[in-house]
C-alpha cells in the first residue's frame, strides 16, 4: 500500500469538486498537474467519475411529473371545498375570536361607519333642508314667553342684548307697537320672579313682569 502522501491526499480531497467544476483555478491546476504526473491517480479519478455518474443517473429516465397525479389527488382531498362558514371559523380562530363575537364586532363596525359617514347634501337642496343638517336653532313664536319687559326709550339694542344674556333669557317675541318684549328664560328651572326683579333694577328696563298663562300676541298684531 502506498505511503501517506500529502499531495495525494490533497488530490483525493479535491477530486469530487474537480469533477463538478467548482474548484478555484489554483486547485484545478494542482489536480491537473498531479494527474498528469501520476498515471496511477487515473484509477481513483475514474472511480470518482463512476460515483458521479451513478449519482447523476440515479433517477434514470424518470419524468419530472412522475407521481404528480397522486400528489394532486391528496392535495384536492385536503382542500376539498371549504365552506364559507368554515373559512369564517378559520379566520376567527386565527385572530383568537369566537365567531359570535366576530359577527357582533362586524355589525358594530358597520353601524359606526354609517353614523360617521360624511354628510353629502345634494346640490339644489332647499334652505330648510340645510338648516336641518346644520342644526341651526330658529326661534319661533311657538316658544312660550316667561317674562314681559318694557325697555326704556333710551336703551340701545346692544345694552338690552347684554342685559338679557346676563340674566339668562332671550327674546321670543316683540317688540310690539308699544315697544314691549317677551322673554324666555334659557333655564327652565330659573327663578322668574328673581329675573324680573333683576331686570327692573336695570336702567334700560322700565317695567318687567312674569307672564302667566297669557297667550302670545300674533306677529301681525
Amino acid at each position, binding site marked *: 500500500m502506498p505511503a501517506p502522501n*500529502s499531495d495525494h491526499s490533497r488530490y483525493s480531497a479535491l477530486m469530487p469538486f474537480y469533477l463538478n*467544476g467548482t474548484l478555484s483555478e489554483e486547485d484545478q491546476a494542482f489536480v491537473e498537474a498531479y*494527474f498528469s504526473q501520476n498515471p496511477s491517480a487515473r*484509477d481513483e479519478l475514474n472511480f470518482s467519475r463512476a*460515483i458521479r455518474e451513478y449519482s447523476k443517473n440515479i433517477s434514470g429516465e424518470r419524468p419530472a411529473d412522475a407521481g*404528480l397525479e397522486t400528489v394532486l389527488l391528496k392535495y384536492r382531498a385536503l382542500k376539498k371545498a371549504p365552506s364559507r362558514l368554515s373559512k369564517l371559523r378559520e379566520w376567527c380562530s386565527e385572530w383568537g375570536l369566537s365567531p359570535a363575537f366576530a359577527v357582533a364586532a362586524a355589525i358594530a363596525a358597520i353601524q359606526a361607519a354609517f353614523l360617521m359617514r360624511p354628510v353629502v347634501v345634494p346640490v339644489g337642496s332647499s334652505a330648510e333642508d340645510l338648516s336641518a343638517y346644520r342644526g341651526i336653532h330658529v326661534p319661533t313664536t311657538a316658544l312660550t314667553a316667561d317674562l314681559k319687559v318694557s325697555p326704556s326709550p333710551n336703551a340701545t339694542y346692544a345694552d338690552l342684548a347684554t342685559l338679557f344674556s346676563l340674566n339668562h333669557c332671550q327674546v321670543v317675541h316683540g317688540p310690539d307697537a308699544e315697544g314691549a318684549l317677551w322673554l324666555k328664560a334659557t333655564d327652565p328651572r330659573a327663578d322668574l320672579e328673581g329675573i324680573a326683579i333683576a331686570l327692573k333694577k336695570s336702567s334700560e328696563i322700565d317695567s318687567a313682569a312674569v307672564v302667566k298663562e297669557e297667550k302670545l300676541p300674533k306677529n301681525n298684531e
Partner: protein
Amino acid sequence: MDLELWVSATYIAGLKSKKIRLMQELPVDTLRALLNQIADGNDKAVRQIYVHYQPALYGFIRHLVSDESAVEEILQDTFMVLFRKPESWHAQSKFFTWLCGIAKNKVVDWRRSQSKHNDVVEDADQVLETIPATGWDMLATLEAKEMSAFIAKCINCLPQLSREAIYRANFLDERVEDIAILQKCPVNTVKTRLFHARIKLKECIEKILGSGGKHACA
C-alpha cells in the same frame, strides 16, 4: 495535452456550459406567489412547484434510501407537508434546502418504522493526511454498468451525511464551501467525508467481488 486530461477538461467545460440537471431555485417572489396560490387551492401552482423540484428531491431521497417504493412514499409525504401548510416556509433558508430538511425528517421516520434507525457511524474525524494512499487498480477492470450496480448496492454502507455530501457534490454540483455550510462543519470535514465514502465504497465492492457477489458492508 494528455488525452485523459483533455477528456476531463472537455467534460468539465461541457458541464459548465450545458448545466444539465442543475437545479435552479425559483425566485423568492415567484415562490411566494405560488405558495399563496397553493394555499388558495390552486392545482396549477402545485403542478408547477412539483415539476420543478421533484427530480432533484427524488435524487436526494434516492441517495438516502435504496428502497424504491419507500423513496416514492417519502417524496409524496414531503410534498404533502408543503402543500398542507405552504405558509410554513419563511424564506429564511433556500426553498430546496428547506424541502430537503423535511425529506430528511421523513427518512428518519421511515427508518424508525423499519427498525433500521441505526445509521452507519462515520469516521470523518480521521485526518486525510494520516490515511495512506490506496490502490484503485482492481476497480479499473469493471465495466461502467457493473460499477454503477455495485455502487448502488454499497451506498447503504455509508453514513447519511456522506450520502448527502455525494448527492450535493455530484447531483447538484455544489461547491465544497456550500456543502460545509449546509452540513454545519468545516470544509475539510466535507472533503474527508467524501474521501471516506470512496474508500468504503471501494472496500464494499472488493468484498462483493471477493465473495462472489454477496453484499457486505465494510
